[in-house]
C-alpha cells in the first residue's frame, strides 16, 4: 500500500521552513513526520500529514512548489534490530532505498518507517512473505489520534 508524502521546494533562507509550517498550521493540518534534504541554496521538505490532498492544496495556494510522492509506510516493533531486519529483506531482493526516515507512533511500541524506492511495487512484493506490516493511508491517518 503506497502512501502519499508531501514534498515542498524551499530556499535555504531564514523563515522559509517557518512559512511552510505556518501554512499547514493555519490550515489545521498536523505534521506527523518530517525530514529535510538540503543543499547550500535550497532544500526539499518531505512530510507525512494525515490529509495529504488538503496539505497539497494549502501549500499550493500559498504559492509553494509542492508535489506528492508515493512512499511506503511500514510498521515495525520499536525494538533494536527491527530496522535492520526490514532493510535486509530489501537487500536480498536487490532493491535500492532512495531515502528513508522514521517516526514513533503514539502507541509507542511501534515505529513507522517511511521509504522511498525507485520501484515501490517490488518492495511491497518483497515484504509480502514477511511479518512486516505495510500501512494504508487510513492507517497512517489514524496514527494521529
Amino acid at each position: 500500500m503506497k502512501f502519499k508524502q508531501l514534498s515542498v521546494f524551499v530556499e535555504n533562507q531564514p523563515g522559509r521552513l517557518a512559512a511552510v509550517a505556518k501554512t499547514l498550521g493555519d490550515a489545521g493540518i498536523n505534521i506527523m513526520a518530517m525530514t529535510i534534504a538540503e543543499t547550500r541554496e535550497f532544500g526539499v521538505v518531505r512530510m507525512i500529514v494525515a490529509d495529504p490532498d488538503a496539505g497539497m492544496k494549502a501549500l499550493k495556494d500559498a504559492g509553494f512548489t509542492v508535489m506528492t510522492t508515493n512512499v511506503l509506510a511500514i510498521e515495525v516493533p520499536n525494538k533494536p534490530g527491527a530496522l535492520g531486519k526490514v532493510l535486509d529483506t530489501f537487500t536480498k531482493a536487490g532493491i535500492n532505498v532512495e531515502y528513508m526516515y522514521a517516526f514513533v507512533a503514539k502507541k509507542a511500541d511501534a515505529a513507522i518507517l517511511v521509504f522511498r524506492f525507485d520501484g515501490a511495487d517490488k518492495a511491497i512484493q518483497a515484504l509480502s512473505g514477511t511479518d512486516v506490516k505495510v500501512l494504508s493511508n487510513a492507517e497512517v491517518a489514524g496514527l494521529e489520534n
Partner: protein
Amino acid sequence: MIRHKEEKYSREQIEELQLERLKPLLQRVYDKVPFYKKSFDDAGVKPSDLTRLSDLSRFPFTVKQDLRDNYPFGMFAVPMEEVVRVHASSGTTGKPTVVGYTKKDIDTWGELMARSLASAGATSKSIIHNGYGYGLFTGGLGAHYGAEKLGATVVPVSGGQTQRQIMLIQDFKPDVICCTPSYALNLAEVGEKMGVDFKSLSLKVGVFGAEPWSENMRSEIERRMNVKAIDIYGLSEVMGPGVSCECIEAQASPHVYEDHFLVETINPETGEVVAPGDPGELVFTTLTKEAFPLIRYRTKDISRLNIDKCACGRCMARMERVTGRTDDMLIIRGVNVFPSQIEHVLLEVEGLEPHYMIIVDREGSMDTMEVQIEMSEKLFSDEMKELDSLANKIRHDIKDYLGVSAKVKLVEPRTIARSEGKAKRVEDRRKI
C-alpha cells in the same frame, strides 16, 4: 495588409525617394539646429556634399549623449510653438532624452503605427487592447493613435492591474493585443492561474515590442496565449513604435519603413557601414520628421538587414531580431554575453518558466554570473539527485552556448519580480 503605396515600392523607388528627402533634410538641420552645424563643421562636411545615398557615410553620427547634452529641447528644429507634444525616454540614469513632435509628426507617426497594425493583420473592425504604458513612454500613445488612425476600437488599458486586464479581455473581446512580450507572458501566467483558457478568448494577434525578445519567447507566447505574435520595433528618439514591424504573412523580422527612416548597419567599433546580411549596430536617419530630426543616430541595437523581397510583397529592409544592445552586453571574464543568449538556453529546458534573473558580481578580480531560475511544478522533483542534474544540465548548456560558466540557482516560485512593462533581467553588482 498594405496601407500605403510606398510599401509596394521597389528598392530603386525606395532609394530614389530617400535621396529626394535626405538632401533638404541635411540643409534644414544644418540651418536650424546648432548641434548639427557644429557636428558637420567639425567633420568637415557640408549638406551639399551629399549627391548619392552612399555619401551619407561621410556624415557624423549622433549618439544618446548628444541628446542629453542638449536637454531638454536643444535638438528641436522648429520653434516650440509648433511642437504639439513631447515624450521622454525611460532613462534610468541621469536626465531622460526628450523628443518633440509637430502636428504633422504626430500624423505621420499615427499613419506608420496604423501601417504596422495593418501589416500585423488588424483592420478597422478590430478591437485593440493596448497594454503599453501611457505617459512619457512612447508605447501607449503611439499604439493608441495608430489604432485610431486605422479606425479600430482602442481599449487604452496601459500597464499593470493584470487580473483586471484579463477580465477586460474576456469581456471586451479584443482580437488584437499590444504590449511588451514580457508583460504578455505575465498576462498568460496570471490568466492561467485564474483558470482562463486562452483558446476560448477572442485574441488572434499580439503586437509585441519595446524590449528585445527571442524566437523561443515568441513560440512560448503563441502557445500560451493562442495568438500570432508579431514583432514591432521602435525607439522614442527615432519616433516611437512603428519604425519597423513584421508582416503577418511571413512573420520573419520587422520591415523598416524606409520611406520615413533610412537605416544603416555599422561596425560598432570602427563606425564603418557593413553590408546587408552582416551583423552590426542599427543606425537611423529620420527622413520626414519636423520637430526632432535625427541624422545617423546610433541605436546600440545589434541586428542584420535583409533586403530580399518578402513573401508579403514588400521590398523594405527587414531587420533581423535585435539580438541585444551594445549597452546590455555583459562582458563576463572577457566574453561578450547578451541576456537574450541566456534566455535562449533557458527556454530550451522543458517545463522552465520564462522568469529568470542574471546576477553579475565580482569576487576578487573574478567576474561571477549567477542565473536564478524559478522552480516550477514541472521541474520539481523530491529527489535531490534530480534537482542536481537539472541545475547541472542548465549550467552545462550555458557553458556550451556562451563559453562562460555560470552558477545556477533554483529559487522559489514568484520570487523574481514580474514585468509590468519592460522586464529587468540583469543585475550587475560589479563596482568597476
